[in-house]
């Protein structure tokens, strides 16, 4: 009997029933005996000195059992970590979980109330008296770097945290007498990751041991860092990420709230819970993007790229978050994208402002890089009067040139840009749309058609530990899995990645089912609890499958190896003669011999008759640390109708052809692409975190921060090409961020393409009707 392979099958996700109905354990629905609730008092000022703080009036409120200010934890709260000191001399101010003397962004916590219920805690916040002496807020990156600027951290003497420089190739030669030079400035607006589930934390102290449930992406990292900050020995901390409703990077931090709950629970000796509100989340979940990109290319008249120069200002916000300084560096290697060139010059300065700190947000550095280079390739096409596809074709790495070491020093193992582009052009009906565009331009149609192109790539599977070490990142990049076959032949797999919507329960079970020849339903995947998953490095950077999945494969291989030895012993045959297929062992040449792996598991579990030296239980542990990143790529094409009278942009057609290597579950891959497209399109058209002139965030609600919903988005045409990765045995590349990285330039490129006849070459993101209308008005005003 042979069964259809699980890998490649569009299994419906086993976790969805519980996730969609909400009938599962989220952090917020955990109830413990004697549990109290925490509410945070947050700074209303962007920048102010705290001249006095008195929490005692809150203590008298009904239901309140305690209230603490930063001073109360001064000796134990430590500072929140930044694990990525990108340069030796990086300016790294202390980031206190509860501010004591000074607040530096609106929303920074200054005190807490602990009460018997959530509402009593929230109500009692008003009784806390804080006197602030407002200080001038620093809100503009370029102003912040000027001589004599107001300082976010007065004692540091500068608003610049670091400047990181990366030079490759002969830049001088590339730019000398370059026939074509194009320079542009692009603004990556500030984005607010909007996971469906807000953050939530529960801490339960038992004796001197602590269990923390947190809506986090990184239970393992959180545990280690909490131990370092609080000096509670790591073995006495257990962190559990139960089901988590989305993260997109916003839950990879180790946050003030987590540390403060831990300290307060220790102080009070009782379980505590905190759940953030949406508005509180918009203020305090780390933000993403927020860069000023000055980018220039040098090219020959035939369109061949010579060199690329990138100067970035990256807004860190008020403090450095866990990997915040490194986010732009993840983009540094991606500016050259799929193109060949002789030189690359990249400089990035991190800047402090009195805003919410920034950190990784879906794509982290790579969407910014892809946006800039793809927009610039369009500009080059216009300059040379070439089709933008043709300009790309003249520069991209050809499929026969792989593996190819780029100017940034990365070796792209595989890819086929021609194939993906060809497939996309056909599905899009590119030539037909170009003809329509010409016709509408000719007619002076008030609704103009624009076509945008993104031939993106990204580096996924973060990351080779060795490379992370070279980049001075304070963590490794390996992943772990253990697979065990229980006495009854069912399988439990423990993984070190920590899903929060990605469908690991389903995907990992598909891999294991195929490897061990067992029914998919027989596999249970465990994760997110440091007591069951004793090692792992969690989920971010599209690493779960490309690294975690390979660890699962390695663990299965070890299980099979052991099972094979046991089977040979049980079948009294030589190990060399044992074959394994469809979940059963047989002796080569002996037709009737067949021993299901489940029977082997039972026997190994009994241990009545084991080969010498074999330990009972059919299980194994394995890790995987990649040699290289993986490089998904693809071609996204977008057609928009731009109403030149109202500025309204409507996406008419969106074609995404992605090459993410081997696909385990096509349905999940499509889902990841759809979600990624929604977020990338959101940056292009809808979302922006806005601060007013005093440093108040004015987009604290979903009425103001415009996360698109299904009616705002077009029907996506998704398709794939499949060039397997050569750097891992599964041939997979990762898909978690591809849609976000690819789509933003495709959409904005389309908007600009529609308006090009008016002399417009940029519209700032998000391209709201107002911005588009204004750009048209300015262009027409200038022309008349």
């Amino acid at each position, binding site marked *: 009997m042979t069964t259809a392979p699980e890998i490649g099958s569009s299994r419906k996700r086993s976790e969805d029933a519980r996730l969609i109905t909400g009938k599962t354990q989220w952090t917020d629905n955990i109830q413990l005996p004697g549990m109290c609730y925490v509410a945070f008092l947050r700074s209303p000022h962007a920048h102010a000195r705290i001249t006095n703080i008195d929490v005692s009036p809150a203590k008298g409120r009904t239901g309140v059992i305690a209230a603490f200010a930063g001073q109360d934890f001064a000796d134990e709260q430590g500072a929140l970590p930044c694990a990525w000191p990108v340069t030796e001399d990086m300016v790294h101010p202390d980031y206190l979980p509860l501010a004591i003397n000074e607040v530096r962004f*609106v929303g920074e916590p200054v005190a807490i109330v602990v009460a018997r219920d959530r509402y009593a805690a929230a109500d009692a*916040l008003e009784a806390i008296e804080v006197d602030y002496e407002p200080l001038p807020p620093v809100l503009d990156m370029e102003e912040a770097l000027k001589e004599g600027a107001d300082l976010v951290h007065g004692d540091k003497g500068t608003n610049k945290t670091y400047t990181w420089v990366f030079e490759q190739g002969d830049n001088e030669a590339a730019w000398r007498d370059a026939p074509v030079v194009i320079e542009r400035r692009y603004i990556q607006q500030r984005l607010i990751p909007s996971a469906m589930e807000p953050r939530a934390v529960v801490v339960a102290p038992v004796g001197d041991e602590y269990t923390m449930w947190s809506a986090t992406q990184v239970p393992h990292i959180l545990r280690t860092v909490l131990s370092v900050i609080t000096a509670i020995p790591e073995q006495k901390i257990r962190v559990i990420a139960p089901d988590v409703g989305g993260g997109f990077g916003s839950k990879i931090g180790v946050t003030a709230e987590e540390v403060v709950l831990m300290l307060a629970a220790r102080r009070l000796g009782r379980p505590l819970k905190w759940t953030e509100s949406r508005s509180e989340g918009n203020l305090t979940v780390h933000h993403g993007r927020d860069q000023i990109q000055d980018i220039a290319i040098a090219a020959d008249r035939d369109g061949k790229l010579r060199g690329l120069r990138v100067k970035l200002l990256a807004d860190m916000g008020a403090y450095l978050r866990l990997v915040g300084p490194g986010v732009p560096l993840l983009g540094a290697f991606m500016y050259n994208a799929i193109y060949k060139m002789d030189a690359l010059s990249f400089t990035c300065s991190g800047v402090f402002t009195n805003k919410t700190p920034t950190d990784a947000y879906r794509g982290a550095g790579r969407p910014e890089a892809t946006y800039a280079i793809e927009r610039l390739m369009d500009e080059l096409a216009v300059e040379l009067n070439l089709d933008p596809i043709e300009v790309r074709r003249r520069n991209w790495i050809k499929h026969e040139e792989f593996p190819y070491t780029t100017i940034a020093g990365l070796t792209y193992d595989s890819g086929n840009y021609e194939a993906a582009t060809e497939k996309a052009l056909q599905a899009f009906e590119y030539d037909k749309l170009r003809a329509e565009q010409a016709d509408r331009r000719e007619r002076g149609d008030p609704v103009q058609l624009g076509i945008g192109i993104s031939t993106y790539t990204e580096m996924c599977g973060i990351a080779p530990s060795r490379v992370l070490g070279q980049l001075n990142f304070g963590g490794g990049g390996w992943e772990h899995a253990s697979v065990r076959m229980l006495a009854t032949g069912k399988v439990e797999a423990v993984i070190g990645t920590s899903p929060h919507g990605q469908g690991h329960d389903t995907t990992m079970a598909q891999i294991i089912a195929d490897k061990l020849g067992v029914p998919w339903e027989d596999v249970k995947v465990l994760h997110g609890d440091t007591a069951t998953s004793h090692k792992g490095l969690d989920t971010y950077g599209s690493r779960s499958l490309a690294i975690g999945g390979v660890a699962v494969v390695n663990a299965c291989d070890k299980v099979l190896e052991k099972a094979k030895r046991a089977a040979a012993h049980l079948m009294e045959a030589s190990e060399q003669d044992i074959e394994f297929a469809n979940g059963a062992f047989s002796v080569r040449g002996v037709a009737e011999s067949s021993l299901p792996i489940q029977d082997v598991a039972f026997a190994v579990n009994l241990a009545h008759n084991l080969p010498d030296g074999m330990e009972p239980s059919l299980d194994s542990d394995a890790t995987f640390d990649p040699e290289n990143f993986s490089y998904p790529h693809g071609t996204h094409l977008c057609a928009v109708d731009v109403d030149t009278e109202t500025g309204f942009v409507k996406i008419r057609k969106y074609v995404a052809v992605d090459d993410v290597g081997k696909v385990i579950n096509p349905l999940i891959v499509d889902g990841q692409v759809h979600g990624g497209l929604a977020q990338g399109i959101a940056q292009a058209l809808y979302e922006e975190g806005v601060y*007013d002139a*005093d440093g108040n965030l*004015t*987009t*604290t*609600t979903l009425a*103001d921060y415009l996360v698109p*919903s299904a009616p705002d988005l077009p029907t996506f045409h998704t398709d794939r090409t499949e060039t397997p990765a050569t750097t891992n045995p599964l041939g997979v590349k990762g898909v978690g961020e591809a849609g976000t990285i690819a789509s933003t330039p495709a959409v904005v490129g389309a908007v600009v393409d529609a308006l090009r006849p008016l002399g417009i070459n940029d519209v700032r993101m998000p391209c709201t009707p107002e911005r588009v209308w204004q750009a048209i008005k300015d262009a027409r005003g200038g022309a008349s």
Partner: protein
Amino acid sequence: MELDHEFTVPVPIDHAWAVLLDVERVAPCMPGATLDSIDGDEFTGRLKVKLGAMTITYKGAARIASKDEASHTVTMEGTGKESRGAGTASATVQAQLHDEGDTTRVTVHTKLNVTGRPAQFGRNILSEVGGKLIGRFADGLHEEIQRGQVGPEQAPAAGPEQPAPTSTQVSPATDGDHPTAPRTEGAAAKTAGAATTDGPGRTSPAHQRREQRPTADAIDLLEVAGPAVAKRAAPVAAGFIAVFTIWRVFRRRRGRHR
């Protein structure tokens, strides 16, 4: 945020100037404001605003920071703190009178800083709301000065001749579900003392004004902001309509399959 307003009142500049310096008369021009105490050029009070579901009461102090008779300019500074919350508000209002014969043109320049929930309420809403709020203040001032044309010498003078009716004097400073303490005795007495000429049986401009303007009622900023907020609600309504439409289409399709 800086705001500018301008209006003209049909009284000569000297009359207008006298009104402008009378805190007792000027302060209630601010919609939602209640005076608690006056001490020379300094006064304390409350300002209650409603922002959708939020009702925010600011407690604070204001003072006449400078007055220059020669240029007919008066500058008032006010700072307030939310009585239930961490937010703050501060404003510097500079009013200048311009002599135009029988009429006076008044220009009002306001610098407004708000922190906390209302500042985070939404893009542009605050400036719109602030603009409307100051606009109403200017309207009130306009009316007050117009009333003032009877002449400053006839305007209310200090002197507790008759006790004031409490219904108009002690403002019903409740914000719905959370009663706020009425102003303190001392402050009340002081205020009453300063304003008691508008007792029963006497018609004074101040009395008329009080009758017409229940000053302590929270001003609903969303109502004030009007269309801007309606625009915000529209996508929500559209969302509901869209969901409903999808549901109907879906239902019809399913129906056809049967």
